[in-house]
């Protein structure tokens, strides 16, 4: 997949481009280009999240940090990458849980797990919170790795270009 803009962080894109005499058309051009480029990126991210959710639903929960790595590698802005990966982790773990809840008593299960863990005072919210936080943390930690790896990926991409 070709992601020409988003794969390059502005801070790390090499020497600055020559100053345009008329910046307005350039701005308009880059916004339009960015939007055009963001669509496949968003689709990619959505697909990654959906794939992550499906994998988690099948028990391959360790796919979650890999989704995070991909998000970190794709999104050049750290804050955005963290936020998106957090949401992706949440979705990847919450969606299968919601799907299970349609068919089986997830709330009761949470209460039982809380009791076994000695968290009866916290109630069913305890295991639910642990679950979602674990999903988020795994994905965000993966995104951090992805972001950090860009330092090594970007020069390689530049060279390829």
């Amino acid at each position, binding site marked *: 997949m070709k992601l020409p803009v988003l794969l390059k962080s502005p801070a790390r894109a090499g020497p600055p481009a020559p100053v345009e005499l008329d910046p307005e058309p350039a701005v308009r051009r880059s916004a339009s280009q960015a939007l055009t480029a963001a669509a496949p990126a968003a689709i990619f991210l959505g697909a990654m999240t959906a794939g992550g959710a499906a*994998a*988690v*639903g*099948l*028990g*391959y*929960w*360790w796919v*979650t*940090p890999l989704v995070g790595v991909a998000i970190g590698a794709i999104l050049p802005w750290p804050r955005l990458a963290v936020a998106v990966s957090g949401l992706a982790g949440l979705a990847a*773990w919450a969606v*299968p*849980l919601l799907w*299970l*809840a349609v*068919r*089986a*008593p*997830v709330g*009761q*299960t949470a*209460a*039982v*797990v809380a*009791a*076994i*863990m*000695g968290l*009866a005072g916290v109630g069913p919210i305890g*295991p639910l919170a*642990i*679950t979602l936080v*674990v*999903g988020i*943390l*795994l994905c965000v*930690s*993966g995104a*951090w*790795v992805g*972001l*950090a*790896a860009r*330092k*090594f990926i970007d020069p390689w991409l530049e060279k390829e270009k």
Partner: protein
Amino acid sequence: LNLVASLLIAGGLLYVSFAGVGPLPPLGAAFNPGSGVWRAATEGVPISSRTLHLAGLHGPADVAFERNGIAHIRADNEEDLFLATGYVHARFRLFQMDLLRRQSGGRLAEVFGPAALPVDEFELELGLLRTARAEWALIPSGSEGQRVLMAYSKGVNDRIEEATRDGGLPPAFKLLGYQPQPWTAIDSLLIKGDMTQTLDFQDEPLTSALLLKSLGPDRTAQWFPVQAPNEQHPYAPGPYKKDAPEPLPVQRTVSDATAAAASEVLDRLDSLPDWAVHRSSNSNNWAVDGSKSVTGLPLMAGDPHLELTLPAIWYQVDLQSPTYSVSGVTIPGTPVVVIGRNRHISWSLTNVQNQATLYYKEETDSGRPDQYLWNGTWRHFDHAVYDIPVKGGGSTRLDVKLSVHGPVITRQSQTMSVAWIGNQPSADLEVLLRIGRASNYGAFRDALRAWHAPSQNFVYADDAGHIGMIGAGYYPIVRSGDPWLPLHGTGESDILGTIPFDDIPQVYDPPGHFVFSANQRPVGPEYPYYIGTALDEFDPGYRANRIYSVLSGPGKFSAGDMQRLQNDNHDQLAIRVLPKLVDALDQTRLTPLQSRAAALLKTWDADMDAIWAAPAIWWTFWQEYRELTFKPWWDAGRVPVSRSDVSGALDQDLETWTLQDPRNSVFTPPGAPPQTALDVMVKAFGAALDTLTRQLGPDIGTWQWGRIHSRTVSSLLRVNQLSWGPRPASGDSRTVNAAGGTSGPSWRLIVDWNSKQALGIYPGGQSESPLSPWYQNLVGVWWRGEYLPLLSGDEARAAGGSVSWKFQP
């Protein structure tokens, strides 16, 4: 640096998610919605009919589940039948099974951490694992016993593989962060050994040694005699085949070293879970023949009393193959029906309570390390070395010393070893297989010849009109010495053998037309062998006496009468002693509160009903009466034994002296003015009312027994939210409906050989999953004193709401 830091954090998080750290479970593996604990939610959905492929099956098999979860398993041959049974057990009770084998095999610390290490060390010292291995080695290759155990293990392993593959392991495995190891035949034998320990491992000789040391020989002999002093009804009253032996001389002293060793071992035993030592009485069973039955054919009833847990110790099944057709209850982890019926006979068990544990003081010499004197020769101890894995801490090495008598269980004080019948291989599973196939008393009795431990009273009834009772098991006979105390280990007190099978307590078609046992001493004083003392080994006899008084009465009985007797809440001790108490109160000037309480007792029929105040007054009175009588002696002698540990023996003494010897010197505390039983009773009555006023308030009308007496069916993991109760409960520990706090009738069975119908119920449910509709669905039925019919497989399959699983090779 950023990359390194990110990799470290992400790697650490992944590690915790895969493996867990400290008390944290593996977070990813445990909590992911696909294969983690959430998978257990599917247990909350009723199961549906399906077809399964089980490796190891020779042909098709199937199981039909009644609406309430009772399983009916059917196969064309026995191996497939027990393979399917193993699968079904593991499908619904895998964590319980794993916990039981870990408990008896000394592997709890591996999953629970260092806190469980003392239990593991004790279990490995005691030797259930050594015994299970020895039993497995003794089972002939290719024998039926071996084939059944192997088939059963295969079925369990089929389920372990399936659950591991599809994430269906119970949540406790995931939260503890481990996967079950494959099941082996030795695991099944371990679980059998665990039951033997619960029922037969005793500490009374150690208690006796401390009583002798502190109370002195005369009082110990008087208060804790071999023959209980109160009125009892043995089920095998004689005449017996041999003459009574010469009375054994009473040992006058216990050395300081022996007392110290006894204290050390008792301290260790006190720190162990309740199941590790047998401390209470268990179970009722009885049968009446056709002349006492309204139907003209026998009625049989049985209710083993055990710790009540969720999941229960029992899993109810109906097993059908061309050669084995038995309904009843099994212990998950073992393949055969323990209590039940086939097409011709029925049986149920109570604990014999004979002395099954002997302690030996080994003669050692600091100049001869690792040796002991036996039969005039210094011998080296044998050693069994175990590496106990400990969660989060590698492993701990345990070196168990073994003398000819058994494992050494002291560490600091005098070297003391223990010999108990649970260390003798016993072919119980094969015996139960043979019983399941028996069609008459001869075959039933013949099968029991090989039953050694735990010693059990097997009640029997059949469709030909016969009834019987056999106290099967080992009854150790020692060469010399007092077996109720620690014995000399130098050889002169070794076990010579056991009472011959033909001489053990047994009765067949007795002239009274009924048989019964409730852990009372099964034989009378003329019985020619020593089998134990009154010190809490045998029950004081109150349940047995109640059963005797009902069954020996006029009239004939129906299955409904059997139900009522199993749920009977009359306290036989109250029936006997209450008139004396009322007499004493009539001769005393009472306060208004005391008068009201006395009036309640006068009109009370000794029914320990939860809604009445009289049972609360009676029960509290008796506790105070026992305390006021014995506490001064305990204080004077600085007796290092809890009175509650010997309360059964003290109750029989107090009952006897109250009724027959009210001027006994025991009622006069050391150095106090003379008192009689009546004086102490009146004081105890006042003290009881003071206690109840403090506990329940001044209004006697609100002193319902159920406010101070409850019943709980605890979850196996001791999690209150997953337990049933506590609920205000009728009955007490002396009633036929034995109602201790967390123990009681763990299974009730009634068989009517005229209609060939059986009824049964246990407090629990077939599934160990708290989410399952079958987790505790049977408790309510049990609590109400109701029963469910033991349906045949065909009846179950025809019944509405049943679900079938078909098993294919």
